[in-house]
Structure formats: C-alpha cells, structure tokens
C-alpha cells in the first residue's frame, strides 16, 4: 500500500465504490428486499453513470464545454438497436449479440465524435458549446426522418415515409422515422452495466494518468504553453473528444436495450438530456470522476423517490438541485464545511494533545 501513488489509491477507491454498490444492490435484489422500482432503475443508472463519467472527460479533463453528448448517445443507441433488431434471428445468443451491439454502438458514436470533432474542436468555450448543441440536434433530427426497411432484396432507405420504402410483402420496417425502433431485444442487465462502468472508468482513469492525459490537461490549463512545447493540440483534443463520444455511445446501447421502444425525442436525446448530463458533471465536480458517478446516481434516483409528492415532485426536485449546488459549490458553504469537517476536528484534537 505504501508504494502506491496517491492517484492509484484514489482510482482504486473509485473502482471499489462501484463494486461495493454492485454487491450491495445485488444482495438486496437477490434477497428480495429491493422494490421493483429500484430494480427497474438499476440498468438506466448504469447508462447515466457512464454518460456522466464520459462527459467529464470532455468537460473536466479536456476543459471544453460540450452540449451535444446526448447526440452521441443517440447514435450509439440507434446503431446498436438497429443491429440487434436485424440480428435477433441470425445470432440467437443474447450475450454474443449484445457484445457485438456494444462494439458497434461505441464505434459508430466514436466515428461521429471524430467527424464532428474535426471542425468543431477548432472553436473554444461558448462557441464550441453552441456548435455541439447544434450537432446534437442535427443527429436527433436525422434519426427522426430516417426510414429503413428490410426484405428479401436487402435494405431500403427513405427519408420521406415508410410507404416510399417500397417493401415487398413480408418486408419489415426497422427504423420507422419518428416512431423509431420498436421491439429491441431486452439484453441489458445490471451486471453487464456495471462491467461497462468499470471498463469506462478503466479507460478514462488510465487515459488521464498517461502521457496523453497529461498532454490533454496541459492544453486545458494553458493552450499556448502546451503548443509551445510541441503538443499536437488537434490530435489530443480529438482523442479526448472521440473517446468521450464512444463511451456515450456505449451508454446509448445500454439505454436502447433496456426499453422495448426507442424514439428520438427532445426528452431522451435532445439538449434537455445533454444539459442533464452536464448537471451530473457539474454537481459531482468538474474533473472529479468519482463525483460524477455519485451525482448521476443521486440525481437519477431523486425524481423517482419523490414520486410520493405527486404534483410537487418536479418542483421539489428543482429546489433540491439548487440546494445541492449551493451546498457543494458556494464559497461560504465550502468554508463552513471545512470548518466543521471531521478531518479538521481530528486535526484540532491532535494539536491540542
């Protein structure tokens, strides 16, 4: 233990926390003491945790504000659901199919990340935020006009309506424009979700502590200084951005394979969602990976646990959000917490002794 560096220790605490949460949840589920609401929330929680962690890579480590994260999630969700829907008969083994679906979702979202990143990452700050916001909306709108069907002649595409696909009798519409994809096999499980969280953490934490990670953070802290010592800014920015996008795609895969219907609406893949993910990151602490995990869990559970309040639910949720932000980030609150924290008390006692 002594030889471990502080960051390694810190990373292990993060892994351990995820594993402990998994163990606790799994024990409760097996012993039957968990409500069905909680059981139903386990898989979405995994998706949101991955989203928060991956956005933290862009916002916290790369230091760029991205508001298009839901767009990458959307790409991952639709490409993987499309694959699963087509392959449900060809590959009956759910495990193999789902692993392939995850790879496809991650790859397509990653490629989108690179394509969007090339023009977009030349911008900074607010401009980047606005352009990523626009890209997120474009992805959502493209998905909404896309019609894809399959019959014995292969695939048919259209951007008008499902009639103009010209399918033969017995042909199947797979992506039905705004109605999205229905009947995606329910392959997501809590265990796979947790494994994916661990893999994402592994990728991100290792990236942060690698040579590339230090280069990325150097760009964040001082672009000019980083450039002057020969760091290839575009390369590293693109690296962080596309990894972040690919992981968002993985979250999309989990999301898509948890529900029987997949539609791209402002609610789930629009900017509302992007901002929600950003809220996870900001509340948990920009650049703080463990904080993002906790914030994603708390903020996803909160509106569900407040269901008892009926009509006041969303109001209370918003109020709680404000209070939590103030508690976490207002200078006075930080000062108060430092004064009253257990650690400082221990220190005082030690000094007194």
């Amino acid at each position, binding site marked *: 233990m002594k030889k471990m560096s502080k960051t390694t220790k810190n990373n292990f605490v993060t892994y351990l926390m995820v594993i402990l949460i998994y163990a606790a949840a799994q024990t409760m589920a097996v012993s039957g003491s968990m409500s069905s*609401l909680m059981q139903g929330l386990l898989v979405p929680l995994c998706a949101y945790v991955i989203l928060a962690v991956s956005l933290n890579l862009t916002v916290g480590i790369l230091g760029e504000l991205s508001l298009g994260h839901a767009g990458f999630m959307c790409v991952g969700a639709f490409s993987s659901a499309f694959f699963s829907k087509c392959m449900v008969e060809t590959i009956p083994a759910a495990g193999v199919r789902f692993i392939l679906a995850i790879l496809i979702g991650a790859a397509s979202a990653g490629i989108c990340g690179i394509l969007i990143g090339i023009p977009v990452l030349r911008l900074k700050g607010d401009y980047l935020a606005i352009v990523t916001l626009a890209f997120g909306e474009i992805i959502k709108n493209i998905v909404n006009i896309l019609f894809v069907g399959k019959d014995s002649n292969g695939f048919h595409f259209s951007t008008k309506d499902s009639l103009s696909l010209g399918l033969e009798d017995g042909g199947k519409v797979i992506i039905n424009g705004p109605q999205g994809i229905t009947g995606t096999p329910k392959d997501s499980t809590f265990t796979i979700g947790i494994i994916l969280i661990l893999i994402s953490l592994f990728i991100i934490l290792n990236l942060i502590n690698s040579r590339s990670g230090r280069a990325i953070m150097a760009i964040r802290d001082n672009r000019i200084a980083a450039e002057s010592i020969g760091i290839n800014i575009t390369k590293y920015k693109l690296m962080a951005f596309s990894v972040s996008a690919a992981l968002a795609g993985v979250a999309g895969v989990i999301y898509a394979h948890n529900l029987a219907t997949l539609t791209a609406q402002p*609610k789930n893949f629009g900017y509302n969602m992007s901002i929600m993910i950003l809220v996870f990151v900001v509340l948990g602490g920009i650049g703080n990976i463990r904080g993002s995990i906790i914030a994603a869990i708390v903020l996803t559970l909160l509106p569900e646990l407040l*269901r008892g309040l009926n009509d006041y*639910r969303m109001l209370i949720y918003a109020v709680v959000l404000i209070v939590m932000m103030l508690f976490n980030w207002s200078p006075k609150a930080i000062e108060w917490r430092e004064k009253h924290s257990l650690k400082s008390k221990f220190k005082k006692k030690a000094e007194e002794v």
Partner: protein
Amino acid sequence: MKMKKVLAVALAAAMVMTAGCGGNGKEEKKADSDKIRIGAIGPTTGGAAIYGEAVKNGAELAIKEINEAGGINGVQVEFNFQDDEGDSEKAVNAYNTLKDWGMQALLGTVTSGPCVAVGEVAQGDNMFLLTPSGTAVECVQYDNAFRVCFSDPMQGIESAKYIGENGLATKVAVIYDSSDVYSSGIYEAFVKEAENQGFSIVAAEAFTAESKTDFSVQLQKAKDAGAELVFLPFYYSEASLVLRQAAGINYSPIFFGCDGMDGILAVEGFDVNLANNLMFLSPFTPTSEDEIIKKFVTDFEAEYGHTPNQFAADAYDGIYALKEAMEKADVKADTSVTDVCEGLKSAMTDISIDGVTAKALTWEANGEPSKAPMVVKIADGNYAVVE
C-alpha cells in the same frame, strides 16, 4: 474535500437504503389493504400533459362514481395515477412504482411510445393492461393488453372508406405531423386504403412538432394540386391554425379530420365559423343527447370546470370496462396479479358496456375494441353526428 466525498458516499448509501426499506414498508402495507388497486400512467407534466390530465380526470370521476355505488364486487377501489412525462423510460419507472404500491390492473399508458415500453414489461409480469388512448398497433401486441380507443390504421382506413364510399372527393391532399406516431400512423394507413377507394392523393405534406405554426406552404401545395378535400390527421390545436390560414388564402376544400379534431370549437380565439362543414371521425361528442353522455359531461363539468374531451371519455369507459370485467372475473382485493390478468383476459371478450364512446362496446381477443366510428360534422358552430 475528503469530508465532501465521505458525505456524498454516505448520501448515496442512504438513498439506496431508504429505497430498499421503502419497498419493504409498502409490501407490508399491501398485506392489510382491503381495496382493489387500479394503477394508471400518463403524462401530467411536459408537452403531452393535457392528455394525461384528461385521462386522470376521466378515470378519477369513474372511480368516484363506482366507489359511491358500492365498489367492484362490494370492494372499494383505490386509484393511483403516476406521471411518465411522456417518456418511455419514465413510464417504466412509473409502472414499477405502481407495482410496489400493489397495483392489480393497469389503465394506461396514455401515449403510444411509453405504452409499448410498458406493455413489454407488463407482459413479463403478466399484468393486465388496458390503454385508454394508446393508438399504435404495437400497444396491444400481447394478449394481456387491450385498448379503448381506435388504432391508428383503423382510423386511417375508416376515414378513407368514408371519403370513398360517400364520393366526397377524387383529389385528396394530406397534411400530417411526421414527428408524431399517431399522425403518421393514420396517414400511412389512409394512403394505403386510398388505392382501394378510387380517389387519388395529389399532395402529402408533412410538418413536425417544431414547425407547427405555419401551414401556408402545405396549404398552397394542396391548393395548386387542385385537392377537393384535405385530410388532417392530427390534433385540434394545429388544425385550428390550418383552417384559419386556409381561409387566408381563399382556399375552401372539404376538411376531414380524425378523433384528435374533437375540441376544436373550444380553442380560444378561434372563429367557429371557419370550422363549418369540417368533418371528423370521433368516438365521442360532448353535445350528444344520449343519457349516459349527458350525465358524464354534466358531472365532469361540475367536477373540473371544463368540457371533457375524448381522452377523458376513453378513460371513463376504460374504468367501467375494468369494473365490468373484474365483476365477471370475481376479482377481490387479495387476488394476485396473475389471477387478475388471466381472469380479465377472458372476461374482456365477454363483456359489453354502454359507455360514453360507444353503445354496446365489446372487445376482441386481440385487444381491439369493436365500435363503429361516428362521423361528426360541424354546422352553425356545433357538433352534429352524420348518419
């Protein structure tokens, strides 16, 4: 810094614990409950909130009446309506919440997308599901699911048949909302059936939820194509704009709508004369002289202060259908979910109710209601049923 992390971990742990314990507490409560529990799901916040509210009000009115009349099989009914914000994921959460509460049968969900997602889960649990207004075909794809409203294709086909059989027009234009499941579902079925009915579609123009205020382009295209009838398969709020803008360009074809058109005369600031001769398919007309409908409308107005729309009517009939079926299947407060589902599945095909959306309403085993749509025509600022 450390303190914050410790606190955050503690907070997360506490949440998990309370959630788990909450589940326990509810299960205990369930054991001594002596009421039949019916759950419902729909949007009461967000863009589709008006539909969710209407269903909630309609269902609550029916529950109140049933409880005052002695309940189902002599057992009082408890009703719990959960918000899904019109989102599939939230709908599944709402469903699980209701399951923890001890729901025995589900009325819902209100909108199509969430209904398919919930239907999948409900099928796994063998939970009986009756959707008041989920119109997509997939809503009732499993044998535990039934619906009160018409399906999308059925409305499209019936509209096309009515236009064809009555020779209303030979050149027809369609304007539809391509971002809406309901609207595009009707549109597709309508176009398919049009081939069999001897009229041609001369223009099919789409709009989306983001651009639903200006219809001049679509109307101009319909006018240029010489359409004698414009089919409007979407909701009344947008339809009122279409009618106003059509009058603006002196274009007066026959306008024909679907059940979403119901309520157009109540749109604020809308000149009802523009709607004269507007025809639409509807299962429900609040101005009907029928005794049951009259009573429903008066009670509803007394309770909520406005006229019920078809969503409220569907929900009202849905609750009465559940009551009838539950009486037939002899459901009690302690009947298990599976027993309720099996009982209701067979009972649904045997019952026949005189509801506000149809007389002698019955169901097929595939979940579809068998009721004939009425065609309503607006004359002198009032709804009138066309025979």
